């Protein structure tokens, strides 16, 4: 299997007031293979979100490098940076807040396509297609984010992420703000998309719920206080955890 994403020695230090530095993520390495679903779990504040925000270049890493499809993207800027978002997309935790309240869902979904040079008409056709893939009908193109439910909005957010045809989908707590039944629907949707997506879709799935990750992911990374404490297949980790923190995490869920 081919590596689509490789993270080496990634570190983020936040400079606080009084010159007190806080290390959110320290020296982590991992890679994501083609078509794989990698789960990152850990409690709040363990550095999961910081890690993925660095990967998507929304925050600048302090040290280390990120390699996407063999290209070092750690320090690229401007147009080059905008181009990597054709390969890598993100779904956020709060679906409604992730859409501009003044734009329709359709505007949000077609934005990346229009930036890539598609005409408005073509972009709309693609938007309708991805919306249908995500289980919504095309009437949602004209709706505003406050007019749809959280679950529908998260489906639209997934549609937005998939519209440009990325090979990596980063889900940052994408199911955490939804209720349990909708969570399951979204997981099923992601599973379907993995199987039926044209290109091979790799998913980086950030979650604090081990039970959710267990069935869905091929491999799991456990993070605690900014470092990777354990990694392996979900079954391995659940059945015979090596690390104390992982044990605690499992006890708290099961």
């Amino acid at each position, binding site marked *: 299997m081919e590596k689509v994403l490789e993270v080496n020695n990634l570190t983020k230090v936040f400079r606080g007031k009084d010159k007190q530095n806080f290390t959110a993520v320290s020296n982590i390495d991992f890679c994501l293979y083609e078509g794989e679903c990698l789960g990152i779990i850990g409690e709040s504040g363990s550095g999961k979100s910081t890690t993925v925000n660095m990967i*998507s270049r*929304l925050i600048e890493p302090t040290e280390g490098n990120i390699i996407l499809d063999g290209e070092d993207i750690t320090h690229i800027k401007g147009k080059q940076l905008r181009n990597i*978002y*054709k390969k890598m997309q*993100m779904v956020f935790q709060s679906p409604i*807040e*992730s859409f*501009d309240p*003044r734009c329709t869902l359709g505007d949000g979904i077609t934005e990346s396509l229009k930036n*890539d040079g598609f005409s408005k008409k073509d972009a709309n056709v693609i938007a309708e297609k991805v919306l249908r893939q995500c289980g919504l009908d095309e009437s949602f193109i004209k709706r505003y984010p406050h007019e749809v439910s959280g679950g529908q909005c998260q489906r639209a957010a997934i549609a937005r992420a998939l519209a440009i045809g990325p090979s990596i989908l980063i889900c940052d707590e994408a199911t955490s703000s939804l209720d349990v039944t909708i969570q399951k629907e979204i997981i099923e949707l992601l599973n379907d998309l993995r199987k039926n997506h044209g290109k091979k879709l790799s998913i980086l799935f950030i979650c604090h719920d081990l039970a959710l990750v267990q069935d869905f992911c091929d491999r799991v990374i456990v993070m605690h206080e900014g470092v990777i404490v354990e990694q392996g297949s979900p079954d391995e980790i659940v059945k015979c955890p090596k690390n104390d923190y992982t044990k605690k995490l499992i006890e708290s869920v099961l």
Partner: protein
Amino acid sequence: MSTPTIRKQKVKRTTVKTRLIIFGTLAVLLLIGSIFSSHLTPYDPYLQDLSNAKAAPSMEHLLGTDRYGRDMLSRVIIGSRTSIYSTLLLVAIITAFGTAIGVICGWFGKWIDVILMRISDMFLAFPGLVFALAVAGVLGGGLQNAIIALAAISWPKYARIARSQTLAQKETVYLRAAKLSGSSTVKIIFKHILPNIIGPILVTAMLDIGTMMMELAGLSFLGLGAKPPTAEWGSMMSDTRSLITIVPWITLAPGIAIFISVMIFNLLGDTIRDYADPKNREVRG
């Protein structure tokens, strides 16, 4: 959702729309009136008739005449052009300039922010009207220089509002999503930031129309704005204020004109804010 809530929301939406139509129409009427003001005056507003000075309101002169016997109604009508247009121009200049500076500061931050904000602090450090007086005094009298002077003291307010709003927008999730959609800085600013911050700025601008009208009048009164005999509401009021106990209508007529136009623009500003909020818009589809 229960039925009463739905009904209540519907009533609210229609009220906003009705208000927008009413105040919008009034504002447009006011503007059209001031464009064609020279055709609407019953008498020549600059024609003096000392034998008929300080006449009380009558059928002939609906608002009476001033101390030179000029028809007050005609002067109020013709004065709308100077007062309304110079005020609108002034507010448009400071809104556009202040917002542009504020967005640049908020978005780019770092040294650009520091430099531009310290410059705006310098303008804020002086008492407003005194500084405007100094600027207008240096540039010399005239309406155009009065506008420049007032613009110089008023833009920092807009820059501050725009800056803080932009900073708040920068933290939103949808802006991150827009970045991930590969939108350029210019596109993000025009498509996502400006539409989301323009509400409070527009309301401030609308509410400022009244203040600016008064400040322009103040400068005119001191001889640094509209020059007599040009009819301008503020200077007309100032000119005749010594006569208020003897012939109150001379002062009241331009005063009421200012009151009504300021009122219309304030209410219009409020309504535009309500209407621009998509939560008040009708559900589509």
